[in-house]
């Protein structure tokens, strides 16, 4: 069983199966315990465009679109401390995400802001969800990291290294794309655009300063 309930929190525990995700809907709030690996721009490019094998096994686990601040404790023996970690704009990875999910078998993608059809299709086709963690909350997120288990592709520098973490109740994670492919931000955008047009019309009644 990879879903636990504790103190009113719904917690996904890795490894996660497609079955575990089927009752989760956009707008739900969940937490994550287990294996979470930071993975962003160049790492996606290496996996999808360069065809390189990802050196951390993310199958049935989670990735985080993020570039953290890390403090070395004993870097020669692979010991690091997570100082500050928060999500980065997920949309930058949209271009690669369908193939990335297909190749790696990742189940939970955590990031910031919405993603589009590529990711929504991947979520539907392969059983995966995209969640956002409220951004700018890097210390809340860092204290959920119990240990940095390993660091791969360190040649990419601190923000882009694959930092494989063991996390406990990492969150809150707000589900933005569910495994049915529904997309919270895309649905919200329809609403926002309609209201935006109304507001532009309203403001324009008052700003005819050039006469």
């Amino acid at each position, binding site marked *: 069983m990879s879903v636990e309930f504790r103190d009113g929190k719904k917690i996904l525990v890795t490894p996660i199966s497609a079955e575990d995700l089927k009752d989760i809907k956009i*707008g739900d*709030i969940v937490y994550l315990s287990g294996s979470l690996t930071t993975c962003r721009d160049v790492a996606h490019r290496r996996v999808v465009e360069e065809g390189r094998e990802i050196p951390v096994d993310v199958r049935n686990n989670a990735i985080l679109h*993020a*570039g*953290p*601040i890390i*403090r070395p404790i004993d870097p020669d023996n692979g010991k690091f401390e997570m*100082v*500050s*970690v*928060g999500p*980065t*704009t997920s*949309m930058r990875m949209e271009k690669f995400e369908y193939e990335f999910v297909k190749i790696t078998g990742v189940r939970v993608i955590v990031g*910031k*802001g*919405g993603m589009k059809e590529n990711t929504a299709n991947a979520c539907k086709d392969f059983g995966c969800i995209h969640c*956002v963690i*409220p*951004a*700018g*909350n*890097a*210390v*809340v997120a*860092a*204290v959920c990291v119990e240990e940095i288990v390993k660091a791969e592709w360190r040649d990419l*520098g*601190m*923000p882009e290294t694959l930092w494989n973490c063991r996390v406990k109740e990492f969150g*809150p994670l*707000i589900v933005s794309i569910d495994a049915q492919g529904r997309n*919270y*931000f895309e649905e*919200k*955008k329809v*609403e*926002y*655009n309609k*209201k*935006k047009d*109304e*507001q*532009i019309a*309203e*403001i*324009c009644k*008052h*700003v*005819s*300063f*050039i006469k």
Partner: protein
Amino acid sequence: MGDQVQKMTDMMAKFIGHTAKKLPDDVIAKLEELREKEDSPMAKVIYDTMFRNQELAVKLNRPSCQDTGVLQFWVKCGTKFPLIDDLEALLKEAVIKATFETPLRHNSVETFDEYNTGKNVGKGTPTVWWDIVPHSDKCEIYTYMAGGGCTLPGHAMVLMPGEGYEGVTKFVLDRMTTYGLNACPPLLVGVGVATSVETAALLSKKALMRPIGSHNPNERAAQMEKLLEDGINAIGIGPQGMGGKYAVMGVNIENTARHPSAIGVAVNVGCWSHRRGHIIFDKDLNYEITTHSGVKL
């Protein structure tokens, strides 16, 4: 003189570090106000997380957001300030020092050669904008951590006068519903109105240095600040773009005169974690910090 350069470098490094860990007083007050006014469960969870994060950042002495930005300084320096010649170099040194002491994320990638310098400084970074103040021996410095997320919505263009302030309105609101959602609302929105892209763009960033709740001295510009603020809020973007009653902490407009044939307009946004600092030095390096109460460097 060397001692004074070292002293100011150390003070600036400490101040930069502090601004990474604690938000300015006006931002905290505004976020508290907006938190009270939101009533959806999702907005409440988001605000609870934000406030818990800021408490933890101070308690654990860590940067509150992992993206500590590229450092930008707006300097208003008197021509008689004794360290004027050393200022730009010492600010760069202060950033390097703060990067290792705080620590800050390494956010300077050399363009074309495309490598991270690992020191948070590079060619032209940190950015330093100069306002020279004649007959003064003081130096005012605004510090700003320009994070990637809230830098992305930045946009400038030149409108034809026929598009008028209606065109300015559309330009700003269009940006909010596209890039604004990902820029960590509630945002502080800076708008520049001038002639060309660079004059408008610089004003839009300068507008973000103004305190929240301050108004443009021009009555119409102030009216437009309020109209845009209410209008953006009414779109319903809310905190983190997930829906809610308030999407902005304010809209600040800065303006100059313009060419009769052009309206240059630009928008720049600051995220909810608006890490702006303001410090004023006198000629002996006595200082006053206006943005953060209770700081001793």
